[in-house]
């Protein structure tokens, strides 16, 4: 099913837009004929087409069709305004890997959707500099994990994890799980909620995701901490970047500058991005 939402410029917040008032002079300047091929392409299309998968990944984006909200949506809106074109969020992709397919095939101008950088993906698309940084974390069923680490230190159990590990299907965590927990039995689920339920009921020993996503579960359900816990892996960091078609070097550089002007040159943790873009993170 095709899920496309057009966003009109008149509805967008202005705070993050360079030349926010969108004056005619600025538009005329930007409409010059010496723009790069990628930006000319966007102008010809008359909109900025951004791919976001049909999954929930708050606070980056929500699952609902309209109005979708989140850090990535706010950035995409501001980016479209900087290019003086309306934004079109394309939610046809069912997974993060399908989003990469869309970018590689040229069906969208970019993917801005909590996208992890992996080498297989980098062979097909071009990544911008990371704009967000997330720490990897395990969401753990306490009883199952204790049975798994019987007589051993929890740290050793994690380092030699041999239990059932849930991940989001067709996501970068498949590669991460294979790399970080080669002895684990990996189970893929279509959405993170299913991984969460499977861990909570004891079907899985643990789920693998990022610290911010798991922390939100504990904030939402206070009783969860009795049955589950989180182990944050300090040395495993997921740097989130925007994917553009592999030849769009100038467009990637443009997005890097845009991000730097908006929230600095450093990739920010999810919590700080939420504050920067004024997103409700509940």
């Amino acid at each position, binding site marked *: 099913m095709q899920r496309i939402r057009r966003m009109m410029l008149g509805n967008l917040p202005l705070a993050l837009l360079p030349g926010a008032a969108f004056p005619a002079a600025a538009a005329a300047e930007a409409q010059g004929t010496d723009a790069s091929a990628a930006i000319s392409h966007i102008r010809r299309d008359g909109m900025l087409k951004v791919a976001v998968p049909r999954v929930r990944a708050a606070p980056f984006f929500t699952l609902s069709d309209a109005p979708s909200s989140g850090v990535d949506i706010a950035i995409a809106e501001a980016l479209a305004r900087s290019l003086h074109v309306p934004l079109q969020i394309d939610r046809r992709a069912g997974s993060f890997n399908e989003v990469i397919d869309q970018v590689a095939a040229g069906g969208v101008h970019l993917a801005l959707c909590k996208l992890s950088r992996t080498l297989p993906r980098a062979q097909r698309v071009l990544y911008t500099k990371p704009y967000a940084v997330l720490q990897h974390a395990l969401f753990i069923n*306490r009883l199952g994990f*204790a049975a798994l680490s*019987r007589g051993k230190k929890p740290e050793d159990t994690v380092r030699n994890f041999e239990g059932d590990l849930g991940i989001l299907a067709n996501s970068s965590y498949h590669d991460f799980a294979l790399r970080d927990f080669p002895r684990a039995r990996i189970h893929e689920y279509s959405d993170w909620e299913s991984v969460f339920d499977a861990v909570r009921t004891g079907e899985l020993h643990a789920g693998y995701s990022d610290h911010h996503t798991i922390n939100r579960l504990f904030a939402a359900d*206070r009783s969860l*901490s009795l049955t589950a*816990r989180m182990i944050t*892996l300090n040395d495993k960091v997921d740097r989130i970047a925007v994917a553009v078609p592999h030849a769009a070097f100038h467009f990637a550089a443009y997005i890097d500058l845009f991000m730097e002007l908006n929230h600095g040159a450093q990739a920010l943790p999810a919590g700080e991005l939420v504050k920067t873009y004024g997103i409700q993170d509940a």
Partner: protein
Amino acid sequence: MGETGSFAAFLRSPATVLLFSLGGGIFGILRPDAATLLRPVGDSYLGLLKLIVLPFMISSIIFSLRAMINDKRSTSHLSRMFVIILGASVATAFLTAAAALILKPGTITSAERRAEIGHVLNDSSASYNTSMTLEETGDRPDETSVLELVLKVIPSNIFGALTDGNTLQVLIFSILFGFALGTVPFDASGSLASGLEAVYQTCMVLTRWFILLLPFGSFSMIAAQTAVMGLKPLMTMIGFLSTLGLITLVMLLMSIQVIARRSGESFLTALLDHGNLFMMAVSTRSSVACIPLIIDILVKKLGFERHAVELLVPLQTVLLRLGSIVLYVLGSIFIAQLYGRELLPSELLMICFYAIMLGLSTAGMAGVIAVAQLSIICSYLGLPFEAAFILFLAVETVADALRTLILVATISAATASIAPAPPIQARLPDG
């Protein structure tokens, strides 16, 4: 003089101490901010009580061992003591397991109650999130082996042990020194024995003075403890605490019954004689601090033979750790029930065995560290400990007070079972 005497009797009365303790509890709940300010007062009082423990222990053990070394009964005292410690430990472990299996304090199915537990857990930031590196950093802390732990009780420097307040090391030194002194010609050791006797008697006088301050000490300590803890964790852990309370009550009544029968006194008299001891146990939560008072009650009030009591009470304070055994058995079964894990009979036996072994290691250990030892049993059983640890910590003040009550009551009862009983009409008048 008469008025001073009656005021002292009023302060020494268990009813007065009970009244002040209750007042402290109410004050802590109603005015937590003001009650917290009383903490230094309570701490100073506990410091006073502990001040005399080490000289008391050294003088009483060395003096008693010297006196008993040529007494054939002393060997039988010690062998009886070990039999009683083993029997009481096993009986306590089984009693606790039976109570936990029948009362099921950890079976909490109500979503509301589980949410309340979650709230208590979430109050602690470390309760659900821990951090680590996936790659080994290579700076793993050196692990202490069981053998090293055991060998640590042997003091290399008695003055160091005294400075550190290491009760176990001082005890080992006193026993060795007492045995050695017993082999020295009686005349040669006479002056040292007289000196030790003077130290002992002085400590007893100090104990009686400090008892006069017990109502105020109890008020301050209990007010500060209640203020910090609040009522919410108590209500959340009501199942665990009421099971622990019931076990404590049963063990306390059984102990008093044993003491009454051995001393020839009525149950009520034996109970009233121990009133202040129980209040001191609740407010100080330190069995070591109660040693002088236990000896005072058994010797002066109930007329048991002094040398045996003086030797047995400090020894059993270290070896008869029934309060800790109750904690480990009840705590393990509570956690298993909390997570809906059925325990096999073999696992229950393993819990009892480990509880007895671990109980021995808790002498002189702070309450919180003693609770943390429960993780050893949980690890063997494959039970999660971290969340339950936060819950236990939330109610540790009350649980520790109950455990100390068990300790002092059973130490008194075990000593009464071994020490030669008083002849009829041997009771000394109070004061």
